[in-house]
């Protein structure tokens, strides 16, 4: 059926019964919204998308009103604009903007959605004085801070946490002016089943949610001449940080990132990709061992700290299936503070390890009792961008430089860790060659790539078939875990807490949406394709590290430094 709709005096035809909002978008008309996200269930709370529909007494919310054949819609009439201005004025009054110019120190000072929407609506005067809410900041979490006074209760974080992540730690409470978003019994983000994934931060339009900042600690460490400050860079950061400087998503900025970090004053700039290769050596070997003995299968990956906390809370009975490998971030810290400290003859206490991550959960991971002290501070992509700006560094104008030796070398496989399916693909490349002893002809495992929520494949290694699966986004992780619990058989499963994997991490530039994630993903695979080595076991520096220090994968020393244990949480 065809729907003829008149929007602002022009006829349009649509094939599907879509919402007025979607129809207007197809007609290149942007209707302002604050509570809407096409990936989440419509909620209809901000009412900014209200439009005039002929024959209706009240305005209609475009996000939830479906088009009808013959409908006549006005999206920006005088009446509509006046109502939007009033609502926006009310929102601004409730958003804790004070005359102390607290916009300037907001986490979203450069990416404020409220300001953007206010501009779209054309707020020319503020007649309603701001309401002081005086709600206390929730800093109970190692990873995520909530500033409820800034919250406009659009409910996007609640829906993201529930619908996409299926974690459900946020909720609406109370009614009337006391309506707030909070955690169970107001316990705070650090005291509930929060996985620290930070997807709520990406969803928040108002700066009411942000990461627990480490940048001031890092500045201090850099200033302290007694300390050697070493930074490691995660694979997903180099394909995203350019966005913070106005470049389009998918721009690769590896070399600029390295020179920028040197300019900031880091003593050594190393690469988490190095320990990603190391992880593959350990985890790949662990898989081969479990697969041969058919014990504790399927093996679950352990790189994503959001996923780890999720399984600890929700499926503690399956913790044995987790790989005991530390994540690349933690392996890096452990190697630096043991082998490297020894090698350069420095007291480990004088070394500060900073990691640069697309992730908020990494902040929690670094504080875990099981591996406390390996990594001192964790910066998100957004925090690092702030540091560059504070230092006046125009990152994308810098010329590219190479990582420091010896932890700067990495394979293309390591870069894949940044994307959903990447750990699996990297592990398969190595496991195949170790098991069969033959060179793998086609390195690209397309079945585990892409944005499908749960990806499955049967991979032939020699005479045996290995059944693998990949889930990204904790909502998908839960679906897959339920299938596994019901008895579906897999050998090796990769789990990532964030949609798209680390490139869609809660510490990444805002916006991080599906279109942006696709671009970053393409960049990850481009880096892999162009790499000199594309398999982790071909990394010469990793080989040397085994020769000089660890002996072989799963050796006693590697167990001591590169592996960890987990905590049952209820």
């Amino acid at each position: 059926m065809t729907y003829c709709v008149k929007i602002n005096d022009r006829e349009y035809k649509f094939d599907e019964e879509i919402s007025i909002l979607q129809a207007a978008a197809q007609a290149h008309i942007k209707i302002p919204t604050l509570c809407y996200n096409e990936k989440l269930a419509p909620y209809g709370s901000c009412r900014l998308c209200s439009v005039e529909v002929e024959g209706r007494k009240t305005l209609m919310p475009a996000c939830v009103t479906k088009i009808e054949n013959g409908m006549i819609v006005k999206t920006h009439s005088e009446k509509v604009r006046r109502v939007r201005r009033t609502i926006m004025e009310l929102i601004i009054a409730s958003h804790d903007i004070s005359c102390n110019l607290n916009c300037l120190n907001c986490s979203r000072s450069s990416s404020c959605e409220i300001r953007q929407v206010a501009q779209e609506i054309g707020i020319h005067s503020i007649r309603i004085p701001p309401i002081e809410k005086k709600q206390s900041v929730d800093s109970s979490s190692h990873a995520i801070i909530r500033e409820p006074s800034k919250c406009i209760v659009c409910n996007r974080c609640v829906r993201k946490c529930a619908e996409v992540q299926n974690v459900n730690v946020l909720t609406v409470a109370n009614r009337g002016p006391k309506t707030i978003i909070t955690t169970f019994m107001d316990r705070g983000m650090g005291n509930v089943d929060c996985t620290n994934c930070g997807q709520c931060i990406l969803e928040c339009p108002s700066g009411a949610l942000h990461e627990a900042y480490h940048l001031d600690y890092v500045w201090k460490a850099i200033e302290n001449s007694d300390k050697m400050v070493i930074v490691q860079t995660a694979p997903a950061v180099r394909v995203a940080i350019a966005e913070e400087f106005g470049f389009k998503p998918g721009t690769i900025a590896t070399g600029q990132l390295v020179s920028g970090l040197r300019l900031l004053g880091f003593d050594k700039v190393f690469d988490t990709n190095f320990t990603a290769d190391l992880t593959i050596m350990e985890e790949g070997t662990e898989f081969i061992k479990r697969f041969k003995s058919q014990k504790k299968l399927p093996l679950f990956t352990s790189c994503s700290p959001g996923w780890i906390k999720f399984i600890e809370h929700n499926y503690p009975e399956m913790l044995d299936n987790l790989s005991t490998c530390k994540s690349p971030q933690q392996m890096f810290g452990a190697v630096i503070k043991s082998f490297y400290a020894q090698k350069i003859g420095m007291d480990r206490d004088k070394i500060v390890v900073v990691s640069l991550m697309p992730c908020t959960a990494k902040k929690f991971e670094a504080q875990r009792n099981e591996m406390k002290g390996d990594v001192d501070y964790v910066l998100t992509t957004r925090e690092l961008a702030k540091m560059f700006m504070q230092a006046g560094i125009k990152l994308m104008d810098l010329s590219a430089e190479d990582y420091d030796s010896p932890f700067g070398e990495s394979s293309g496989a390591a870069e894949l860790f940044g994307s959903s399916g990447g750990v699996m693909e990297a592990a398969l490349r190595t496991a195949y060659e170790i098991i069969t002893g033959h060179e793998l002809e086609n390195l690209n495992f397309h079945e585990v790539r892409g944005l499908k929520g749960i990806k499955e494949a049967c991979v032939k290694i020699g005479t045996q078939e290995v059944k693998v699966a990949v889930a990204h986004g904790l909502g998908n992780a839960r679906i897959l875990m339920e299938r596994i619990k019901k008895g579906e058989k897999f050998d090796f499963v990769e789990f990532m807490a964030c949609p798209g994997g680390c490139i869609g991490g809660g510490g990444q530039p805002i916006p991080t949406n599906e279109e942006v994630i696709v671009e970053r993903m393409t960049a990850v695979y481009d880096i892999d394709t162009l790499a000199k080595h594309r398999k982790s076991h071909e990394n010469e520096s990793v080989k040397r590290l085994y020769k000089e220090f660890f002996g072989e994968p799963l050796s006693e020393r590697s167990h001591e430094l590169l592996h960890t244990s987990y905590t049952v949480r209820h």
Partner: protein
Amino acid sequence: MEKIFLKTDFGKTIDNYEFLGLNKALRMKPSEVLEKVKENCIRGRGGAGFPAGIKWDFVAAEKSEIKFVVCNGDEGEPGTFKDRFLLENLPFKVIEGIIIAGYAVDARYGYIYIRGEYEKAIKSIRESIHKMTERKLLGKSILGSSFGFELKLIRGAGAYVCGDETSLLNSIEGKRGLSRIKPPLPAKEGLYEKPTLVNNVETLSVIAEILKYDQNIYLSLGTPKSRGTKLLSISGDVKNPGVYEIEFGKMSIMQIINDLAGGVKGSGLGFVMPGGIATNIISDEQLDTPYTYEDLEQTGSSLGSGGMIVVSKDRDYLSIVKNISDFFMNETCGTCFPCREGNRNINKMIDKMISDGKVGSQDIEIIREIKQAIGLAARCGFGQASVNSILSILEKYFEKKVYV
């Protein structure tokens, strides 16, 4: 004078209440019962005045093995207490109406949702359900027919917004009390996503009463647009507040106040909120308005749920405005921005008016704009009506003074 129609059977017990309406209904076809409801032109008594027969038609037309009838007894509007009167004094008639509705729209399950503070009403309904189940007036094969119906009592938890029908459905399901996005209408996807008929206590009681008669009794009462009688809750500055039944069109507002409620207390009448605090006030010159849906609409106000509040000249109008604003501010579900923030900001502005001792014309202008934004864009009827009386009092008694 009062017209006793719905109030018939006052004080009867299970032993002498005859369930005549139900007896007759069960001997008719469901479609005939439905037709009778339509022919009698009953308008919903919850406040919106939507024709009940049309609502019933929607639900009856839905094909579903499970349908529900929900009786809305979450009477939370300040100054409205007529449902309480029915629940406490005529519980069998209320339940009878629910069963008849179930029969007509082919629903076998019903809920009656009663405001939590109505302890006496809750007790009365609970005991009545028990007694009626014992006498096989509820449960399988009611009065020996093939029709069975189960009724469950739900006690509200104190949120005014749950009186909105979709919020009420959420509340029964154990969810947060906030209005649902329509469509789908409850008639299509209501309680537990099943076709659901939601009717007010008075509406269902009226239907039980009408079914007693072979002729269409309602057509001989009231005016063409306002059929039958209406229970009025009168409160405020009157000598005899209470619940009165009147025939539509037979009395003016002034007659109701003087003849039924015993006249105004104090030094004279200030203004009247004819349909409760969500309706515009009417003042002296409109007091001759006959009490009907259509005549009250003419004045720019509304009959609402029939909660008439009378205010004497002696009152401090600004503190009344503040009281009304407090109510709406605290009772919004807090979901949609215009209603939550609009009512909060209006309240702040009224606070300031009281502390400054003056009402600025710009304040009224802003409140007028907020009212328009809420009225045009809020999520549900609660918000849309929340500023009516506040603005109408300010406009009538404070705005003019600025220009005089």
